[in-house]
């Protein structure tokens, strides 16, 4: 496992990121507005998704279009395990008896969702991790489409395309904050672990890493499973944040939002993953306020409806134009003013 | 008058510096070998001259133009023909198509088609095997034939300078002999300037001409190939540090 020196050297990154998240939560708490509170919950969920994505994509360098499939798996676990048995019987009559009777708290559902997603990540990953490059990306996309197609049509177990409601809604920001912080620490711990180092070495120097005896598919699989688990837990929490799931929620829209946030933040950086979410979410929120209208003196200035999305796309393009490696590139926030570095970059010891 | 002149050129890949402040000139009609161990920065230097990797510093002149940071196609159009390492043939194109790709740069000039046809015949005359298999996909050729093809392709544009990266890499010695024989003949026929990168100095010593030794991104020695090849300085520079 990671050496103590590396722990000390890199621990600042997750601490700073957690502090940022806590700051957001405090703002939400102080603002006391329920819609704003919900916005911050949304941001934390995005942080979980994007950090989950980073754990695989950032370390392995393989772009995955399929991770939202794990969020879907997790989201439905929440539906299966937390809805009142009577309601489940109506909307999803095909569930096995023991599951039908089960009613667990939301945090347990998040853990179960993570576990279920991890299991399927292991199954899919065992097959997919042998691929690399764009073939792997497309295969993950095919996986997403498969999961979506199955969940959209398996009426008795997933209620097909219909929204599954009755999931207990959790509207306080704290559980999401805690989950996001835990996820940031998991991602950090993985990144500085032996596996994380090996994976990044393989990403940067595939031939050299293969020659040095790193079993790339296996290490990738480990990352895939961990990130799948994070996505699954995130999916379950997402379900609890709005109280319903549909397969449609966990498809292309969310896939591209999360990928964009990761790329804008910096694909190979944990700080980038978190900052990407915070920056793009703030941008979206700001544009929405503008769209709703801002009071300037006596008059209200409002952007025409729909401009928000267009502006968001344009700003993303501009950010990438000037920072093609994302806002953070490959570096991390370390709290030092001097040059930042990757956690445990090989060769610096 | 010099055809190529480099002053204080350096090349970087990220944090890695491959070429450090290299300066030299090359006269028209000259033949220059750049030798040195693996990782000396020879190929990087060549790629910088051809415009593939823009230099991080310094200045490169070619045929009275400042070509520092210019696009590869602009440099090619000034008469610099590059044959990169690893015989980059267009595998799915036929031999004849491979040869014709470069002639497009003269399409604005009058009677370029006739000239291209002449060039084609000249290349075929030099490398009869290419003519024989002119409609074969280039990917199906043997290594030696591919090397002939890329050299032929480089000549099709009627260049002033041909820069070749490791023409003997992966070729059987007798084929390498053939390739060199052709290059020497061509140089005599066309007053070509040749810039050849080779890992070992043996070839340079056989062919003759000027030779430079690179190591660690710098030019350590520069002089007559035959004289230098036997000198102790050369031995020391090349083998003294050696590759491990």
């Amino acid at each position, binding site marked *: 496992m990671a050496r103590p020196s590396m722990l000390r050297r890199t621990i600042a990154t997750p601490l700073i990121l957690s502090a940022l998240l806590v700051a957001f939560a405090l703002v939400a708490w102080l603002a006391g507005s329920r819609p704003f509170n919900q916005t911050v919950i949304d941001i934390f969920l995005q942080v979980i998704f994007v950090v989950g994505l980073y754990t695989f994509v950032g370390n392995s360098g393989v772009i995955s279009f399929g991770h939202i499939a794990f969020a879907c798996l997790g989201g439905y676990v929440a539906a299966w395990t937390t809805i009142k048995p009577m309601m489940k019987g*109506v*909307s999803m009559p095909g569930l096995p008896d023991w599951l039908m009777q089960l009613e667990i708290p939301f945090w347990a559902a998040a853990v179960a969702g993570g576990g279920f997603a991890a299991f399927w990540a292991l199954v899919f990953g065992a097959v997919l991790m042998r691929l690399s490059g764009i073939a792997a990306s497309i295969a993950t996309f095919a996986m997403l489409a498969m999961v979506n197609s199955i969940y959209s049509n398996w009426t008795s177990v997933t209620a097909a395309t*219909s929204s599954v*409601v009755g999931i207990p*809604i959790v509207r306080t920001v704290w559980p999401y904050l805690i989950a996001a912080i835990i996820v940031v620490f998991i991602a950090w711990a993985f990144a500085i672990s032996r596996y994380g180092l090996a994976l990044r070495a393989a990403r940067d120097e595939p031939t050299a890493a293969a020659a040095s005896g790193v079993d790339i598919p296996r290490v990738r699989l480990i990352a895939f499973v961990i990130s799948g688990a994070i996505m699954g837990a995130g999916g379950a929490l997402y379900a609890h944040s709005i109280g*319903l799931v549909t397969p449609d929620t966990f498809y292309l829209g969310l896939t591209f939002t999360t990928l964009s946030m990761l790329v804008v933040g910096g694909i190979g950086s944990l700080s980038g993953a978190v900052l990407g979410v915070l920056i793009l979410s703030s941008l979206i929120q700001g544009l929405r306020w503008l769209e709703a209208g801002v009071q300037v003196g006596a008059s*209200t200035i409002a952007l025409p409806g729909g401009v928000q999305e267009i502006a968001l796309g344009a700003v993303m393009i501009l950010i990438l134009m000037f920072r093609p490696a994302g806002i953070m590139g490959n570096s991390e926030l370390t709290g030092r003013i001097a040059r930042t570095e990757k956690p445990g970059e090989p060769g610096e010891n | 008058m010099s055809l190529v002149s480099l002053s204080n050129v350096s090349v970087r890949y990220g944090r890695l510096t491959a070429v450090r402040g290299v300066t030299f000139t090359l006269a028209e009609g000259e033949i220059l070998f750049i030798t040195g161990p693996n990782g000396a920065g020879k190929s990087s230097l060549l790629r910088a001259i051809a415009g593939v990797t823009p230099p991080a510093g310094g200045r490169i002149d070619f045929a009275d133009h400042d070509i520092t940071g210019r696009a590869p196609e602009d440099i090619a159009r000034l008469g610099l023909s590059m044959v990169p390492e690893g015989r980059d043939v267009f595998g799915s194109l036929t031999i004849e198509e491979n040869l014709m790709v470069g002639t497009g740069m003269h399409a604005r000039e009058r009677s370029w088609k006739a000239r291209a046809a002449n060039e084609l015949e000249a290349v075929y005359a030099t490398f009869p095997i290419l003519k024989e298999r002119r409609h074969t996909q280039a990917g199906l050729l043997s290594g030696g034939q591919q090397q002939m093809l890329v050299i032929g392709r480089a000549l099709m544009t009627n260049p002033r300078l041909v820069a070749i990266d490791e023409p003997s890499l992966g070729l059987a010695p007798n084929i390498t002999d053939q390739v060199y024989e052709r290059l020497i003949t061509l140089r005599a026929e066309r007053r070509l300037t040749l810039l050849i990168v080779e890992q070992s100095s043996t070839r340079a010593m056989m062919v003759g001409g000027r030779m430079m030794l690179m190591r660690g991104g710098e030019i350590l020695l520069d002089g007559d190939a035959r004289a230098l090849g036997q000198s102790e300085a050369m031995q020391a520079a090349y083998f003294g540090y050696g590759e491990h």
Partner: protein
Amino acid sequence: MKRLTAILAATTCLSGAAFADDERIVVGFATAETGFMQAYDKPAQDAAMIRIAEINAAGGLLGKQIEVVNADTKTDRAEGAKAGLSVIDQGADMVVVSCDYDFGAPAALAAESSGLISFFLCAESIKAGIQGVGPNSFSASVLAAVQGATMAEWAYNKKEARTFYRLLDTWTEYNKGICDGFDWMMPQLADATLVGEDTFLNEDASIAAQITRIKSLPEEPDAIMLCTMMPGAVSAIKQLRAAGINSMILNGSGVDGSYWLSAVPDLSNFFVPVQGSIYGDDPNPDVTAFNAKFKEVTGGDPSTQYTYPGYVMIDVWAKAVERAGTTETSAVVAELEKMNGEPTLFGPRTFTSELHHQNQARYLIVETNAGKPGVVDEWTISAPIPVADLMK
């Protein structure tokens, strides 16, 4: 125009916040002002605003003027939850949510957990109500299943249709609902047979394979029950006719409107159930008058029958509030549940403690003949569809 409403909305909520809560009657619209659903929410919301304006002009509700607050769901579920919370925080007594069940549910759930009534503008799934959201949730429209059942029974009785083919677009719950109603009705029609069935996806670029299956039947079916919606519906209809299939096509209300008919020139033998006619030939002259008023207010004719439920919604809710004498949720819900065949401009409405939706309704049948749609008949299914069957 849209910007104007946005400004109005912004000022309304600012000025509104100054009043004490119980002094006001506030309707909160957590609907899509931008994005995909906007085209569907806007007309129904406009119709609702017309009814609100009428009530306010006639002295208001319980002597108070009805105020309106808005929040945009951006056609996004997570945003929908926020929009719901946002209008609730602005003091809404009743929350109007997006037309589609999937997009409206997050806001409706927010209302439900705050103990407020929510009304779906025009959702047609049984889940848009008690079964999905909870005991305080209603829908202003009619269940999709009723549409499928209506078309099957009507075609059987009035058009002598005996052989049916069922073509389902599995994209949405609405589509499946239509076919569920059709499936419920079929066994009740003696000697009617289902000669085949198939599925497709709304986004399929081509349904050639599905058409080939129809064409390989020994005989063209009398009627094709087409359970789909926009935008894929036009494509499917066009391809069916282009392949030379001339069977009558039965639809849900989702394909109502003449705006798309130019895509299938000279379309004939095509039937749609509607709650009211936008074509100016509604048997009830008041509907035509409403259409004129709608045009006066919004500048355009209603483009589909989905404009109407918005009007019905405010109508029945206001009546219930009037009868209850308060906007307090349980009292209003109790009054709503007492409604049995309550007359509205667009047919009678019934709510019970079991179902906050219509499982039987009077439908006008619109036939499109040579590209011209017009009301040809009126039909109410012979028995309401039992809730148990709807929950399958």
